[in-house]
């Protein structure tokens, strides 16, 4: 059983993930490498970032990322380089433009719409407060309860 579990763990994608190691000239570059490789999306195996994917293209992009970091490129320059080749798709957090505006703003839009709905609901309740029972209704309720209760 334990052996099976070990095998399953070894076969999971995260165990396969990072295959190569890079020597960075500074720890700052290494941490930027980790951040960027998690933000960049693999064009081939979608829904994996290039850090997790072992598709050949993801490996190539990691090499490019490493080389550009060592060459002193800024995060923005590197992201622009990737976007110029693979489109906004390659970023998990695409820039806000006309195409991605809906993606970015719809959560806020939905929140505002929901908020308006709630406000409206309570306003209506205020305008029509519960009026209580008329004498006839109370009599009816009493009769029903008498029948049901021991």
């Amino acid at each position: 059983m334990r052996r099976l579990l070990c095998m399953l763990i070894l076969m999971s994608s995260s165990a396969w993930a990072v295959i190569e190691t890079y020597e960075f000239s500074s720890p700052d570059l290494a941490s930027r490498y980790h951040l960027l490789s998690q933000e960049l999306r693999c064009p081939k195996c979608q829904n994996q970032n290039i850090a997790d994917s072992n598709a050949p293209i993801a490996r190539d992009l990691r090499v490019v990322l490493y080389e550009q970091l060592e060459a002193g490129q800024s995060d923005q320059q590197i992201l622009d380089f990737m976007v110029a080749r693979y489109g906004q798709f390659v970023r998990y957090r695409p820039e806000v433009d006309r195409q991605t505006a809906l993606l970015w703003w719809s959560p806020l839009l939905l929140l505002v719409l929901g908020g308006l709905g709630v406000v409206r609901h309570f306003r209506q309740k205020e305008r029509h407060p519960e009026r209580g029972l008329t004498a006839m209704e109370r009599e009816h309720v009493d009769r029903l309860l008498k029948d049901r209760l021991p």
Partner: protein
Amino acid sequence: MRVKRFIPLAVFALLALLLFKGLSIDPTALPAARLGQPFPDFSQPELLTEELIDASALRPGPALVNVWATWCYSCRVEHPYLLALAEQGVPIYGLNYKDDSEKARQWLADLGDPYRLNIADRDGTVGLDLGVYGAPETYVLGADGVILHRHVGVLDQAVFEQDIGQWFPALAKLGQANAPEGSAQ
């Protein structure tokens, strides 16, 4: 007040329409970032002659640039159709992507050579600049060398007629008379 009753129905209809449209979208099809731009400049050897070539070698257009490699199984599938297209006069330039040049030359010798020339992109830099993420891919270049279209996957007659033939109007008439062989699968 009556209109209000139909709001849930309207919301449902809109949602259904949205989701229905989602069914027909291919999530693996990526928009090509390089559309409308000239073919990225490069300086790489030609596969057969080993002479250095650059983007000006890919003119005149309209032409196809086919990304292929010997390790790519689907490339073997589309190869007969590329030969047929070349025979009909469609200029096809090859981008031999991350491949062993010796094997690639052997492949062309064995299976036939549909390409006007081949960029030997051994480390994949031209492919990267172009936004290639696999093989096969086929790009349409306009007369001025601008990228007009990208097709990802096997190029066959159906794809050609639907998406690519429009840039080769002379061929459309010709193609009806004698459709390329071995391409209908």
